[in-house]
């Protein structure tokens, strides 16, 4: 479904991605793990068109997308839940969701109700709070909202950047369940996580990034037993 071929990209002064090769098949959950500054977020930004490539290419359903603008990438079906949630603080929950949909659809806001129902089915806690301003919600609720906002554009592929960051173990558990449901509903997921445990529980396959390069990749069940992975990411 998604293919990164030989992707090199720089963000700021440092060259942060070197010859990244990565592929995701339909209906997979693929995890991208690595230390801080390894280039995980940059990879997602490159896919979303926020960071431009120096060389290499990105294919989505066999079509090159690395020259497209970010909003075009959203409209062909790639959603992105940014790191730190970044809900629109001064907009209500409902407005956040509407913007998630209208950014994609342009000015027409017809047929919102179906998308809203779908999202509320997944996150029922949001429904009674649609009039609440986003900044006044808890971290967990904001994460739900950020995911929901991305889902409003009906993505075929969802990029998630550190969704578990700053959440309590219980909330991480809930989040894990939600991500599974999103996949069951037919959305492919590329998950960036520092919480390798959670990532390995969820993902079918994983890539390990180290200083801008892919150090390891494979099925999670195989990686789990790899000594290097155990030492670096699954210790404690």
């Amino acid at each position, binding site marked *: 479904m998604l293919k990164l071929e030989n992707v090199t990209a720089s963000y700021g002064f440092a060259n942060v991605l070197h010859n990244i090769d990565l592929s995701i098949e339909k209906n997979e959950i693929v995890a991208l793990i690595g230390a801080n500054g390894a280039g995980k977020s940059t990879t997602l930004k490159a896919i979303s068109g926020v960071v431009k490539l120096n060389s290499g290419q990105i294919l989505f359903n066999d079509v090159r997308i690395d020259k497209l603008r*970010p909003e075009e990438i959203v409209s062909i079906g790639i959603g992105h839940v*940014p790191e730190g949630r970044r809900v629109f603080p001064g907009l209500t929950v409902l407005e956040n969701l509407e913007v998630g949909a209208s*950014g994609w659809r342009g000015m027409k806001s017809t047929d919102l109700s179906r998308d809203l129902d779908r999202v509320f089915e997944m996150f029922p806690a949001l429904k009674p709070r649609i009039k609440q301003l986003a900044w006044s919600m808890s971290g967990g609720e904001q994460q739900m909202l950020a995911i929901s906002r991305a889902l409003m554009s009906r993505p075929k592929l969802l990029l998630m950047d550190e969704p578990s960051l700053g959440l309590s173990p219980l909330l991480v558990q809930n989040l894990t369940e939600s991500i599974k449901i999103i996949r069951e509903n037919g959305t492919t997921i590329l998950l960036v996580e520092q919480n390798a445990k959670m990532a390995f529980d969820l993902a079918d396959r994983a890539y390990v990034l180290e200083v801008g390069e892919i150090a390891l990749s494979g099925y999670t069940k195989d990686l789990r037993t790899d000594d290097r992975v155990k030492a670096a990411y699954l210790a404690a």
Partner: protein
Amino acid sequence: MSGILPQLLFSGLAIGCIYGLVGLGFIQVYNAVGLTNFAQGEFVMLGAYLFVSAVVIWKAPFWVGFLFLLVGMAVIGFLFTRGVYKPTYKAGRFAFLLASVGLSMALQDLVVLIWGPVPLYMPRLVSESSFNIGNVFINPQHIIIIGSTILLLIIQYLIFQKTPLGKMMRATAQDQFAATLSGIKVPLMIIFTFVNSSILAGIAGFLVGPVFSVTPSMGASAMLKGFVGCTIGGWGSIPGAVLGGILVGIIEIFSSFYISSAYKDAIVFLVLILFLLFKPKGIFGETVSEKV
């Protein structure tokens, strides 16, 4: 003498509405891109000149003149985004600010080149003669100003709160990165923001034209007062900017009456300094909800 207080309040309110509109344009741009446009005052002046040229010089009907003003200001807002904002916003924090200062000065001279240095007279919608309610003399243009401001504020409210476009503009103002990832065309939203704020300034010029005369320097002091209004209201707060502007208008009218009209701009400056000293966050503070 008993009528003097309500009368001063009324004129202050009317003049303050103008400053409120200027401040509103300031705040919208500030919230969207974190920058202050020092040419905002000259946009007020351009609005007045555009209307006067259409109605007085080309003898167009009133509504055509107004339409011309709206379209002209929209074009100016667009050109400003493309010609000034876009090439400067990445080049350090003062490039845009200085560029807008340069533009404001150039525009003041440009109108002299085009329309000449003599103040122009702007036709009124309503008769010039005041009427009185009780012993309060009312200038009909003041009623027009207050009425139009209320109408404009309602329109702004509806645009920003009820339409998808307005919600996308607010989202862009709050978090450009997240807006981009939500599929919003951020550069387009920024253009809309500048266009909207320059239209607001233009209408302010159209409203204030009949009260003062239309001169190349009419924007400079309106801008300072719009800024003081924003400071009083607290930067970032939209109702604060409008109410702050109104307060500045009232202070101005009262100080002209009780102290000296020659010193009114100096007194407004004093108010700015006092506010910065004792209440730098303004009355409404920088609201958490609008900018984090």
